[in-house]
């Protein structure tokens, strides 16, 4: 549905993005992840036809974003960063305006506006002035205008920025509701959000895509750790654990009062050792209070990938 091939954009001597290639399948949500200034917005602006790429090409729904801009824009819903919508207008008047701009016929406009108002839970505020709304509602008006006329492709630039946790959850639910029906590009620098909502994640740094994969694969690439909480004498526990094959370094921390120790065991070459660990502890007669695998968070992967680039 969205196909970007070797996109490069230079502003004077500054190269904003370099050789960015990716594709998004129909019905898929792609997360665009990167630190501020990495080139997310530049890529998005090229896709929406605001300016052309210095080199490379991009196609949306089979149309070239530069040469067939109008055709692309007919199929596109876009929410720019910071939601630039007209603060001086009431919600429904604004949406009516946006609907007619997007080519919704006058006789269907009222119905279409009612649909998006309902979809984005904006009905209670439909007559309020946009500038007087809370940030969460404002954001939802932004999404509402994007989904007017039911576009195939949605491009959302940092849709949850500056919202409170409740509002973030609402917006996420709204966006996740599009999965399977719309092709979505979602840019963000909030990692849990992206790993939660997106089937695939593209990590972009310094204008280059450094990794593109599913969140599971991205986090699965690095070695695992096992966290253990054991009630038993520290020195003996440590000796016994070290004797188990596959165990690497161990970090421990003992609560002197209760005698409970917390151990973080690094496994060698990502081997599964939890079974061996638990059996060994039980046979020694200690209590195993807690055990869990510590996967690196997307955050760790992100920081590692973006650091390597520098």
């Amino acid at each position, binding site marked *: 549905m969205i196909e970007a091939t070797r996109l490069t954009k230079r502003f004077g001597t500054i190269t904003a993005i370099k050789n960015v290639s990716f594709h998004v399948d129909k019905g898929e949500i792609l997360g665009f992840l990167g630190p501020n200034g990495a080139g997310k917005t530049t890529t998005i602006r090229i896709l929406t036809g605001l300016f052309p790429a210095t080199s490379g090409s991009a196609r949306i729904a089979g149309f070239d974003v530069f040469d067939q801009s109008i055709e692309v824009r007919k199929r596109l819903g876009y929410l720019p960063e910071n939601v630039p919508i*007209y603060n001086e*207008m009431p919600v429904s008047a604004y949406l009516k305006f946006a609907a007619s*701009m997007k080519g919704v016929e*006058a006789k269907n406009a009222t119905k279409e506006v009612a649909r998006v108002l309902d979809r984005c839970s904006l009905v209670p505020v439909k007559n309020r002035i946009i500038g007087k709304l809370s940030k969460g509602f404002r954001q939802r008006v932004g999404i509402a205008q994007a989904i007017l006329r039911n576009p195939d492709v949605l491009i959302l630039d940092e849709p949850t920025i500056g919202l409170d946790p409740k509002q973030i959850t609402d917006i996420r639910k709204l966006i996740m509701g599009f999965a399977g029906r719309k092709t979505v590009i979602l840019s963000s620098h909030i990692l849990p959000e992206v790993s939660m909502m997106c089937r695939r994640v593209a990590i972009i740094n310094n204008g280059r895509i450094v990794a593109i994969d599913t969140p599971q694969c991205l986090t699965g690439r690095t070695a695992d750790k096992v966290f253990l909480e054991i009630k038993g004498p520290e020195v003996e526990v440590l000796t016994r654990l070290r004797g188990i094959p596959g165990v690497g370094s161990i970090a421990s921390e003992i609560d002197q009062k209760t005698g409970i120790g917390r151990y973080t065991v690094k496994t060698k070459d990502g081997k599964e050792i939890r079974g061996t660990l638990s059996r060994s502890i039980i046979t020694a007669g200690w209590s195993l209070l807690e055990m869990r695998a510590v996967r690196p968070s997307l955050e760790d992967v992100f920081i590692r990938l973006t650091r390597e680039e520098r």
Partner: protein
Amino acid sequence: MRNIYSIWKREVYVYFTSPIAYVILTTFLVLSGYIFYSSVAFFSNISLQASQMEYAGDINVTEIVLKPTFRNISVFMLMMMPIITMKLFAEEQKTGTLELIMSYPIREVELLMGKFAAAFTIFLAMISLTGFYPALLYKYAAPDTGTVITGYIGLFLLGGAFIAMGLMFSSFTENQIVAAAGSFGALLIFWLLGWCETFAGSGWGSLLAHLSFLKHFENFSKGIVDTRDIVYYFNLTILFLFITIRSLESKRWQR
């Protein structure tokens, strides 16, 4: 066409739901009303004096009231029009709404025409309210209908050129004050070009006079319709609108 209408509707809505339109209309009416009043007062004064003299053939209401009123209205427009047009593109560029609008399937021409029509609507409201002055003259005197009509035609043409220039400056910047100052300065220069006609030598002098807003308006305020004047205003309006479109489109070309 529908896009133009939607943009026009939104802009007019914003003009009239904010204080902008009301402040501009009020200021303009106070100023033009004052000029009209003082011309009428002056006219009644000299016609009183003339009535006591033998010869009073030269005094007529068209020359003494209408002509200066039209000329002064055009001067007030010079000051008010940049204020009407300054926000049209500058504000949208500053707040980023232009980026969103341009992601809709509309063309730059449609955006521009909608905005031009909206500014022209405010201008029409301004000008039509001054229709009260000639109406009053008709009640108490006999102004020349031809001059009234040509005066208004002149104002409309002038207004179109002013708006086009204001839009052009507004599209150049995201700062409304820069847009207003730029278009005011440029309008003033076009206005004053003719002043040095007499010192600039015959060739340059006539060229400068031809470029002057004022020179071409003078004919209309006298009741003369010259095709050259109409063509002049049309050309300028189209030129400024064309530059505006190019300036809006320029982003799309910069590779």
